[in-house]
C-alpha cells in the first residue's frame, strides 16, 4: 500500500515534508489506520503520533486521513483510503509539534472557557443532587464527548478564529451544562456566549457532525444554545 505521511521534526526540519512510503499489508485483513502507523513506526521509530487505548475511547489518536478527521484506531484502512492510497496528516488548523502530534492548547483553552463543570451555588443536600430520569435524558448525546478534537479541527470557523470561536467540541459541552437541571449558572453561561464569535460563528455546515467518532451532533447543540440566547434576549 502507498502511504503519504506528513513529517515535521522541529529539531532538524525548517518546514514540514511529506514522506512517500510503501507498506506490505497482511492479506485478507482490514487493518485499522493505527495498525498501519504501528507497522510504520516499527520500521522507523522516529515517526511520532499520540495513541493510547486503541479502541476509540481515549481520544488520543485523532488525525486527518485522506482529508477527513477521525480516530486512527477505529477507522479501517478500506474506509480511509477506498482508492488504495492513504494520506496521513495532523489535525488541521492547530500548530504541529511534531509529525502527527498537534499542540492542543488552543482547543483546551476554548474548552476551559465554557466552564465545563457543574455550577450550583445552593447548599448541597446531605447525600447528592438528584435529577429526574427525564432531566438526565437531556444530557444524552452531550456528555459522551471524548475531546479528541476531530470536530473542532474540521470546522473552518475554528480554523479562521481559533482564539474567538469556541468550536463545536466546546459548545457541545457548553450546552451539556446549560441543559443540566442541576446547574444554576445558566444566565452567566449564556452571557459569556453572546458575542459575535463564541457561538454565532457556527454556520451550520455540519463538518463536526460528519466526523465525530462518537456520532454526536454539536450543530444541534449550538442551535439549542442560540434558542436559549434568543428566549433570554427578547
Amino acid at each position, binding site marked *: 500500500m502507498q502511504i503519504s505521511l506528513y513529517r515535521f521534526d522541529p529539531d532538524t526540519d525548517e518546514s514540514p515534508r511529506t514522506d512517500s512510503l510503501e507498506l506490505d499489508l497482511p492479506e485478507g485483513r482490514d487493518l485499522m489506520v493505527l495498525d498501519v502507523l504501528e507497522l510504520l513506526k516499527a520500521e522507523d521509530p522516529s515517526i511520532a503520533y499520540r495513541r493510547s487505548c486503541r479502541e476509540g475511547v481515549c481520544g488520543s489518536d485523532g488525525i*486527518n486521513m485522506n482529508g477527513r478527521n477521525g480516530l486512527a484506531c477505529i477507522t479501517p484502512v478500506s474506509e480511509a483510503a477506498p482508492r488504495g492510497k492513504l494520506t496521513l*496528516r495532523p489535525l488541521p488548523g492547530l500548530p*504541529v509539534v511534531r509529525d502527527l502530534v498537534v499542540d492542543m492548547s488552543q482547543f483546551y483553552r476554548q474548552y476551559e472557557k465554557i466552564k465545563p463543570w457543574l455550577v450550583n451555588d445552593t447548599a448541597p443536600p446531605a447525600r447528592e443532587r438528584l435529577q429526574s430520569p427525564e432531566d438526565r435524558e437531556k444530557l444524552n448525546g452531550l456528555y459522551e464527548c471524548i475531546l479528541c478534537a476531530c470536530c473542532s479541527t474540521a470546522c473552518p470557523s475554528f480554523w479562521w478564529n481559533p482564539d474567538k470561536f469556541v468550536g463545536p467540541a466546546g459548545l457541545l459541552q457548553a450546552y451539556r451544562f446549560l441543559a443540566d437541571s442541576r446547574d444554576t449558572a445558566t444566565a452567566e453561561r449564556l452571557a459569556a456566549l453572546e458575542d459575535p464569535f463564541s457561538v454565532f460563528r457556527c454556520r451550520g*455546515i*455540519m463538518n463536526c457532525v460528519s466526523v465525530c467518532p462518537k456520532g454526536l451532533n454539536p*450543530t*444541534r447543540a449550538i*442551535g439549542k444554545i442560540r*434558542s436559549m440566547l434568543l428566549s433570554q434576549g427578547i
Partner: protein
Amino acid sequence: MHPDRPVNLPLPRLAAAMPVTAIASFLHRVTGIVLFAGTLFLCYVLDLALADEAGFERAAAIIEAPPGALATWAILTSLAYHVVAGVKHLLLDFHVGDSLRAAKIGAWLTIALAVLAAVGLAVWLW
C-alpha cells in the same frame, strides 16, 4: 508559545473531503458575495430604466447583450440559491433538519433547486 510551529491547513485537499452540507454552506457565502458585487449592476440598471424612455431602452439593451445577460443570469441564479439556502438556514434555526441525514438531503435539495432556477433563467433570458 511557538510561533514557528507549522500549521497543517491544505485547503483544496480538505475541501475535497468535505460533506455536501459544507459545500452548500460555502455556496451560500459565494452567492452572497456575488450578490453584493452584483447589486452595483442592479442599481445602475434600475437607475437607467427609471430615468426615461431612452434610458429604459438602453437598460433593456444592456440586459440583452451577452455580457449583461450573463451578469443578470449570474445575479438571479445567485439570488435563487441564496434565498433557498437562507430558508434552509432559517429552518435550521428552528431545529428543523438538524440531523446529518436531513442536512445532507437539505443541501442536495438546495443545490438541485438552484440548478433548476439557473436553467430556467437561462431559458427565460435567451
